[in-house]
């Protein structure tokens, strides 16, 4: 079945009669206006959370926790390392070295003082945050809202950390959610001043509910039998409150065709950057991947499974998803991909994969009614 017939088949199933409309209510759309920056911030935050976990526990770490901490050098770093390298190469090198040190401590392969190594990495990470995310953006309430919603609902966040710990009986997912919640609470303190008294109370109530689920970093002795979705409801409700408080639409998938179109444009722009700086181009692809995987993959798979599968495979030629950290110490450098391409005819170059992905997204946009 060719692509045109895939689209026609999808249209025949009625995908585009009149898709769900989104109504503007809030003044900001950070996931559209600052797509890449929010992905970069997510990477910076995830590394920060892993350093928090490294500090909250002492080596030798449990194997699962050690693996989490080792992730400071993985995909999270690749979300912003190209930009950091471009703007401050010395800092980029120093941060990478400091994070490597923390990872080695987690692996039990270093005799360095963990507290010192973590403190140094944290200090450099904060500097990197300032370099990668301009202060005027980082201080925006709407941008903070985007960071909060990611910490609440993204993989390894407050809701998912709890769910994965309980549902899959993986207790060391629990500290991930705990760490994310501590960060959410800190950010809530920064944005809550603009909340009405009612919303302030609502927000605090949700945080208190989440606190009862995450009383400490240590995983509960027994996680089986708990309700895996117990954190999701207050996290979702808090997300709605944060939307109102920060005047920001934090659910970019309220308009699916618009989001798909946005990702197609983002991807096309990234493709133009690949020949000059593959790592910076890959940062855009990470951002696109997040939004596609979280919001569009399921519905795309329903209406155009071949296109969806093709798109998902193309990501693998450009980036390493967070879930794939287990198989790789770091995100696939786009330059590495280019090098790999020289010796492997089956592996698409980042540039070629990017171009195909942009085309797939354009077709998916049509399937979804754009």
């Amino acid at each position, binding site marked *: 079945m060719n692509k045109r017939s895939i689209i026609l088949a999808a249209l025949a199933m009625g995908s585009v009669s009149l898709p769900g409309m989104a109504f503007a209510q809030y003044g900001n759309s950070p996931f559209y206006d600052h797509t890449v920056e929010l992905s970069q911030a997510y990477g910076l935050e995830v590394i920060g959370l892993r350093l928090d976990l490294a500090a909250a526990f002492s080596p030798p770490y449990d194997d699962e926790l050690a693996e989490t901490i080792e992730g400071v050098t993985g995909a999270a770093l690749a979300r912003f390392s190209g930009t950091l390298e471009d703007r401050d190469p010395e800092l980029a090198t120093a941060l990478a070295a400091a994070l490597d040190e923390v990872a080695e401590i987690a692996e039990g392969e270093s005799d360095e003082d963990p507290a010192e190594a973590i403190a140094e990495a944290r200090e450099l990470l904060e500097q990197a945050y300032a370099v990668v995310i301009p202060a005027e953006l980082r201080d925006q309430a709407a941008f903070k809202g985007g960071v909060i919603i990611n910490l609440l609902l993204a993989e390894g966040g407050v809701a998912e950390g709890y769910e994965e710990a309980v549902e899959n009986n993986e207790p060391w997912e629990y500290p991930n959610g705990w760490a994310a919640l501590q960060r959410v609470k800190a950010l809530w303190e920064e944005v809550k001043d603009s909340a009405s008294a009612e919303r302030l109370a609502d927000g605090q109530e949700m945080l208190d509910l989440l606190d009862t689920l995450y009383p400490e970093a240590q995983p509960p002795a027994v996680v089986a039998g708990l309700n895996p979705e117990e954190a999701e409801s207050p996290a979702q409700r808090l997300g709605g409150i944060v939307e109102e408080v920060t005047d920001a639409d934090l659910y970019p998938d*309220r308009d699916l065709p618009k989001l798909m179109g946005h990702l197609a444009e983002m991807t096309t722009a990234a493709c133009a950057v690949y020949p000059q700086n593959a790592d910076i181009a890959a940062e855009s692809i990470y951002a696109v991947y997040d939004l596609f995987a979280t919001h569009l993959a399921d519905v795309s798979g329903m209406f155009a499974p071949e296109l969806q599968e093709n798109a998902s495979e193309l990501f693998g030629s450009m980036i390493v998803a967070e879930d794939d950290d287990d198989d790789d110490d770091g995100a696939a450098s786009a330059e590495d991909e280019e090098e790999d391409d020289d010796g492997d005819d089956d592996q698409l170059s980042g540039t070629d994969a990017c171009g195909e992905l942009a085309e797939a997204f354009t077709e998916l946009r049509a399937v979804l009614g754009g």
Partner: protein
Amino acid sequence: MMGLFARPRRIGVGVGISALAVLLAMPAMAQDETYRVYVANEFGADITVIDSATEEVVNSIKISDRPGEVRPRGMAVSPDGRTIYVSVSDFYPQRQTPEDKIMAIDVESNEVTGEFNAGGNPERIAVSPDGTQIWASLEAIASGAGYDVATGKQFAEHRVGIEAEGVAVSPDYKWAYVTAEATHTVSIIDIAANKVVKHLIVGNRPRVVEFSLDGTRAYVSAEIGGTISVIDTEAQAVIQTIDLGLDSRPVELAVAPDGKRIYVAGGGTSAVYVIDTETNQIVETIREQMGRRPWGIAITPDGKRVFTANGLSDSVSVIDTETLKVINNISVGRGAHSVEIGVVPNNE
């Protein structure tokens, strides 16, 4: 699939009467009947029963001895109002367990009269117009399934969107609509042909679907979208999207018996939105005295009272549909999720 009956009495006893008989009986029943309000308490694993006339709790029906592990969620009422059906599952929506079942409660006695297995984490259910069949959304396996009430046997199962949630059957019983949260879709099942004929994209995270009385429209709430999608059932297309506000977080909705209004439970704003079905405009937003996070909503067959199940305040709010004011709040069990109205004939 074999039904797993807890008691010798079958779930369909007294229910499997013809659609014509039900329709003929309905006008007379409205003259001399009282109502009982059933509230599914997700975390308490029980059903609170309220007498609609006195607005007092008259019973609590245990669904499981393991609250926090087993939960009742969606409910539906038989066409004659005498039986309440409850979808029951555990808290693991990604898997099938023996807890997955549909239970029947006799309204007159408030006793559980039967149950059958409905594997796949049934979240919500709908009853056919003749009362002989039940359709369920099966969250764990992304399916919509039909069951024979009398035997408990599954006679149909169709793949729908991911995280199936709401389900409704059309008044002419030609169609079953199933919503899916993760794919933002409504799947349309042709019951006679036994196949899915269309998927429609609706608002973000669709929850509940209900048909208009004449079956020409279907209304779908979208929790994150903050909308109600209006589907033309003949064209099988979304023809309008009603904006309730992004913060509204609508879940259940109820169509008034005269078909002129829809009442929507807005969990995000702790409000009930009243929509005129002629114009599809919001004519009133009821906030004052409302309980917190209403998810469930139902209207009495005489159209005089609306009841909401309020999950954060563990209460039911009572709304007078003439004044559109909250006139009472009643404490119920933990985690009030859904609400349904049963009918008790006074002369029995």
